């Protein structure tokens, strides 16, 4: 029995893509990479204590003084461990990836929420994406973009986007029928229905999706250090490679601290929306 030449076929397609689009992909990748570098250096320009205070202020606004104090302690601890530069580049990667995921995911979710056929098409795709082990996404990124920050972001975006799509879709589907009827009965255009009724009512659910996207971005950015993303993940990878347990632990703790802060921050935004009274 002959083997189905799957690997060969895929290689061929990839090669074809590389030949035909290689240049434009490279150009895009370069400028995107520059953008990320600029952002990082801007952040590095801000004094560390000011950045901590800004985070604390945000925490205090969306949640309260407890989270603010926790944020200050956690970030100061990261600074004390001398992980500040790694922290900054991880932060930039997470924000950029999450932002791209959200900017692409929410509109897709809106379409899925309002169009049953699209919902039916995209649901199994999302299932598939979410059951794949995360490092599988590194392979196509590596193939098209090589090693570096940009492929890391690319892989992260693909990995982190599904919840943004799913929760937006769900949120819009869950808008009570009679509220949609209100929109229609008063003669709203489809756009008015979306902006004045469906999105605001779905907002708390969408925020939950954004929270998940953030968390997935963080976890993927750490893994993506395998293909050259810098930051805390690179430190963890190095520690593993050299069996430096203590060092791995320090980097690991820093990742956990960021995870907790980002999680509480986005949840805080979500629940302040949920109560309805601003």
């Amino acid at each position, binding site marked *: 029995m002959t083997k189905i030449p799957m690997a060969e076929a895929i290689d061929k397609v990839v090669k074809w893509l590389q030949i035909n689009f290689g240049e434009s992909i490279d150009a895009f990748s370069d400028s995107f990479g520059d953008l990320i570098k600029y952002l990082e250096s801007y952040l590095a320009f801000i004094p560390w204590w000011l950045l901590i205070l800004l985070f604390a202020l945000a925490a205090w606004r969306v949640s309260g003084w407890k989270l603010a104090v926790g944020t200050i302690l956690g970030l100061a601890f990261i600074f004390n461990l001398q992980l500040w530069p790694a922290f900054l580049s991880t932060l930039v990667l997470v924000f950029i990836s999450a932002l791209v995921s959200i900017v692409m995911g929410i509109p897709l979710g809106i379409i899925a929420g309002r169009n049953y056929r699209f919902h039916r098409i995209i649901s199994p795709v999302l299932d598939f994406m979410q059951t794949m082990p995360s490092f599988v996404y590194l392979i196509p990124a590596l193939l098209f973009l090589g090693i570096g920050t940009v492929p890391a972001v690319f892989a992260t975006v693909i990995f982190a986007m599904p919840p943004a799509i799913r929760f937006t879709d769900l949120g819009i589907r869950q808008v009570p029928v*009679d*509220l949609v*009827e*209100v929109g229609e*009965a*008063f*003669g709203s*255009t489809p756009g008015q229905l979306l902006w004045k009724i469906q999105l*605001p*009512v779905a907002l708390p659910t969408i925020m939950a999706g954004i929270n998940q996207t953030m968390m997935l971005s963080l976890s993927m950015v750490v893994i993506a250090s395998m293909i050259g993303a810098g930051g805390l993940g690179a430190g963890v990878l190095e520690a593993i490679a050299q069996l430096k347990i203590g060092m791995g632990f320090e980097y690991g703790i820093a990742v956990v601290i960021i995870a907790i802060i980002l999680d509480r921050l986005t949840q805080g935004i979500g629940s302040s929306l949920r109560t309805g009274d601003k």
Partner: protein
Amino acid sequence: MKEKIIVKNLVKVFGANPQKALALLKEGKDKAEILNETGFTVGVNNVSFSVNAGEIFVIMGLSGSGKSTILRCLNRLIEPSAGEIIVDGTDITKLNAKQLRKFRQEKTAMVFQQFALLPHRTVLDNTVYGLEVQGIPKKEREEKALKILEIVGLKGWEDKYPSQLSGGMKQRVGLARALTNDADILLMDEAFSALDPLIREEMQDELLSLQQKMNKTIIFITHDLNEALKLGDRIAFLRDGALIQVGTPEEITTHPSDDYVAKFVRGVDRSKILTAADIMKKPQPLIPLRDGPNVALRIMKEHGISSVFVVDRERHLQGIITVDAALEARKAGIMSLSEVELEHGPVVSEETPLHDTLTAMVDSKLPMGVVNQDNKLVGIIVRGSILAALAPDYSGSDSEDELAATASPDHKLVFAEEEMEQESANSAI
């Protein structure tokens, strides 16, 4: 009278391919047969009626009879499968999407059973929704909304969120939202059904008084007959999607066209369905025959009443002793009531219809005794109880328990006490 809405041969079949069902309907098959043969549900079956400008047109029928479907066809939230709906001379089934939006903005406004307020908007922002969609400037639409909010009694609540309001207030907002839109036609689908009875009554009154000022054309859906009779200029009855009868409350109650309608309207005349047992109160206080006038006077004083029922050992009713008679007996030195000439008020059996009870009550000043088959005294009726039972908010079509419950407390006691106070005041002189 001007016809505002004319519905001609309206049909709605729920299902992917209604043509087959429509053909079967033409052959005269009914809802159940079509469901069997095609699997499609006939929501509305060839319904025609018209609604006059300024009229409150009530649609009644059991659950699933197609009330909501008809209402939603009127602004095409549900697309009719066949038929015409002519509003102000235009067949709205032929409007395109843009014309339909304009029609909905300008001609109709809807009030929902579960209020359907937008949770992320304040009362004011909910109220302006219709005008906002039409692109009316913010200042103008808010001025208008504030005026309407004041009319429905929500002044001062503009900045609250729906979650901070009671059910009654929420529906006031729903009503205000519909009225602010300034449409001629109000579509109300069981708009008051989710409210508790007192608030509901209040909202009905409110709607009627608003209607006097605003003179809208209102299509009102309910399955509560009392509500229908109170609000409706005309009432339409639906069964299985078909129209059974349309008429004024008068016509419907006096000449129901078939058993279905008759079943609905039975019990409208409450004095014919309630019995003495439904409205009597506990026979208290009573005085045994062997006691004397002194005891009788003490009991009357204690309870603040001017007469008391006298019974024998088996609780058979012997008569009534009044304050005056007791005083006289005391003066005469009589020791036992058995020697006194007792007075006799009206007496009825438990099953006596309220109507007859009423008649018996008319020419007597004394309270009425209710006796069972063994002639034992089981209850007493004072004037107030009858009045309370006949009051319009008294729901005659509901379960018996509820009848007893509504009949007994407040009203009657208030009436009874008034009566007593008056009479004991008289006797004190």
